[in-house]
């Protein structure tokens, strides 16, 4: 399997605290990988490093073989890295459809201003079709034209997922997608993620506390604790690991 994302010895310090300490991990093309660990382990910090919100103090990050450490957030996104957020980040005042449309448009890159000025800014039939099919896929038909503020948290997370998926990323970073959802909603979310993987061969890196969801989506996982990688491998092995049990349950037996 070719390596899509390679992280080599990445470290991030906040003052005296090692948020990430010499972390290395790989995600192969089309592979689903979990990233688990207790709160404060550095999972979101690692996501921020991958997407470019934060620059690591040391280490390198490669995507599809190319170093992306110094690229700004939007350039990495255009290379094919999509993400959702732990604290939901939606565009206030826009409808569900507009969220997806604005993401769909980004596939066209810069230089849309002239087309707007020439009156060519309206959605093309192709764009409308793609947005509609994503709305169907997420089962958000009833909320397609609703203002985003009127959606529930679970629906909001689905919109975020759709917004990240519509530019057809090769790597999807999901940051605690099930937090705030009930068990029925997380099961639906797992279905959507699995469908997407099957249809488009998108690689997924999943940060999640809900181990049922992790098991439903990923094949193998990395475990972070206090900024350090303490275990990795197939899920069953990882759960059996004593260090992991200690970090999660506080016992070494």
């Amino acid at each position: 399997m070719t390596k899509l994302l390679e992280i080599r010895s990445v470290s991030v310090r906040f003052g005296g605290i090692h948020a990430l300490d010499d972390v290395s991990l790989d995600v192969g093309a089309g592979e689903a990988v979990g990233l688990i660990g207790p709160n404060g382990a550095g999972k979101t910090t690692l996501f921020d490093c991958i997407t470019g919100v934060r620059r690591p103090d040391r280490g390198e990050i490669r995507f599809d073989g190319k170093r992306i450490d110094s690229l700004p957030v939007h350039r990495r996104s255009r290379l094919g890295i999509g993400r959702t957020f732990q604290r939901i980040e939606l565009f206030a005042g826009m409808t569900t459809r507009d969220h997806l449309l604005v993401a769909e448009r980004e596939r066209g890159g810069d230089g849309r201003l002239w087309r707007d000025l020439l009156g060519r800014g309206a959605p093309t039939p192709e764009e409308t079709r793609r947005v509609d099919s994503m709305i169907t896929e997420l089962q958000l038909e009833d909320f397609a034209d609703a203002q985003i503020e009127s959606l529930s948290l679970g629906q909001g997370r689905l919109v975020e997922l759709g917004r990240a998926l519509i530019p057809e990323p090769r790597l999807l970073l999901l940051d605690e997608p099930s937090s705030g959802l009930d068990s029925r909603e997380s099961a639906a979310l797992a279905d959507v993620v699995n469908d997407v993987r099957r249809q488009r061969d998108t690689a997924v890196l999943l940060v999640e506390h809900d181990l049922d969801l992790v098991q439903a989506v990923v094949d193998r996982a990395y475990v972070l604790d206090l900024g350090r990688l303490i275990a990795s491998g197939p899920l069953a092995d990882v759960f059996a690991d004593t260090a992991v049990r200690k970090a999660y349950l506080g016992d070494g037996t």
Partner: protein
Amino acid sequence: MSHLLSYGIPGLAYGCVFALLGMGLVLTYQTSGVFNLAFGAQAYASAVAFYVCVSHGWPIWAAFLLAVVFGAPALGVLMQIGLFRLVRTKPPLVKLVAALGMLIAIPAVLEAGFGAGQLINPPSLWLSPSTIYLHVAGAAINGTELSIVIVTFSVALGCSLLFHFTQIGLRMKAMAESPRMVALAGVNTEAVGIASWMLSSFLAGLAGVLLAPSFGGLQATNFTDLLVAAVAAAAAGSLTSLPYAFLGGILLGVAEEILGGYLPSGAILSSGLRPGFPFVVLLGLLLFLPGLRRRWGKTDDPLAGCDPPPAALMSTVSGPLFRQASRGTILLLVGGFIASVLTWVSGSWVFTITQALVFGIVFLSLVLLTGMSGQISLCQATFAGVGAFTAGQLAAHFNLSILVGLLVAGIVSAAIGVVVALPALRLGGLALALATLAFGLLADNIGFQYSWSGNGQSGITVPRPQLGPINFTSDRSYFVLVCIVLALCVAIVTAIARGTTGRQLAALRGSELAAASIGINPARLKVVVFALSAGIAGVGGALYASLDQSVSASDFNTLISLVLVVVVATIGVYTVEGAIEAGFAYVLLNTVLTTDLPSQYSSLLELLFGAGAIVYVLHPEGVVEYLKRLVLEHFPWRHPAGDPAA
């Protein structure tokens, strides 16, 4: 070396005033989240109160008690309770407009009451300004300077003790993070907020009274111009540190005087130094202090999620039938309006109406910038001036038609817009606002003073355009030209709003992080919109110049920029029609109050802007949108989906 000292020592006194103001700014920003642009106006208010008391024969100490010890804090408390308390958790634009309203209203009220520029030779608080008390390194120190230095250092010591050793000081520091969290810990945040406003207003009053004797007469602009220096001092403290703000203020004053000593006297550069130099310092600090960037980037209370979302625009909640009906009515009204102006409306009113439409174009530039992209510019009048002077100078020197000049004006303004926006855009909204404010003051004092640009107060003449056989010399034909340009600008802004760029801007307003995560380039988008907005303002300015046929630097000064922001924000900055309504409101009020009423009512206009700021704080969507909602709520045919509760 001795030169350096003899120039620098007098600068210490100015530096102390900057330090007092800088500390006051930090204090209120920390505890109430409001960047109090009205600070200079408060200093002016105390100086006026002090002057009036002394001139009525009061002893100095009594006048000081009334003007500084009681009066200044009272004004601060009034502003906090009546206005700033309401904006603590509002977006940056609301906070800024609230402060701007006060900045405009306070001096206007005072000048109406006591006459502008009539208060000459202000009394000194303590030591006589005409006595030389000592010589330091060859520099003579007069009483004003000495008393400023002594008082400032004592006050700084007092503040430091307050913050280190008292409970109220500790609470003020905690308020900086989140007043709601402090409230949850059982502290009466209202009381702490009021205390900090009292302290900071006291500092403002003290600075005002101390500084007054160094001016020949009390004029509001002398004090409001101090603002940039105070902002630069506050920026030196990253808006958080009182000691660094203090130090920054003093260094700024000293450096400014040293620089002034080496520049040739009488040149435009040296007379514009006082507002110009702090601007350069401020910009440098904005660019090179990462802590400052973070602080200004972060505008939200951690508990901001508790707030209800802002009111949706009427166009998004009204039903299709209503929309069709209103579109028909608007077309009919616009047609009737144009026909009326072209036929029976009297000459002077044609001029006024044309002017209103020209301002509509300038306001449109703010709708694009502020309403659609959420950025705040406090130098839109400056961009209009750039456009006006570009078109005028091209017509004068190269005989270029104003019609071509309009286009060039737009391009030049847009290019300057890029230069202003590029360094400031990496920062948050407040930083951009302050950078544009400083740029506007720089243009007022230096840029527009040269004969090749605005030619100072004497100004330049600008002809009316001519296109082949069509002559736009008459007001009615010029009105048609303005209508065409306005329609073009409206078309541009509407196309952007409806197209990809509008959606990208909405996304950026919603969450910059998420917008970047789907591939939107925030910096590029912001620069493009800022430049476009500056360009539209430039076109508006050129039209204004050609309408008036003679313009000077004072037609485009920074105070006008501030007024423009307040007016359009109050009327409605989120819709295209809001811009045109703002144009009419501004020009009609101006005309009625300054020409049709006795002169003592002219300051009513500024008072109205102050009141407008308060209304705006209560209805940030704009008065027009608010009224539309009121009407629509009593409409039988509204769209079921329009009900937010449904």
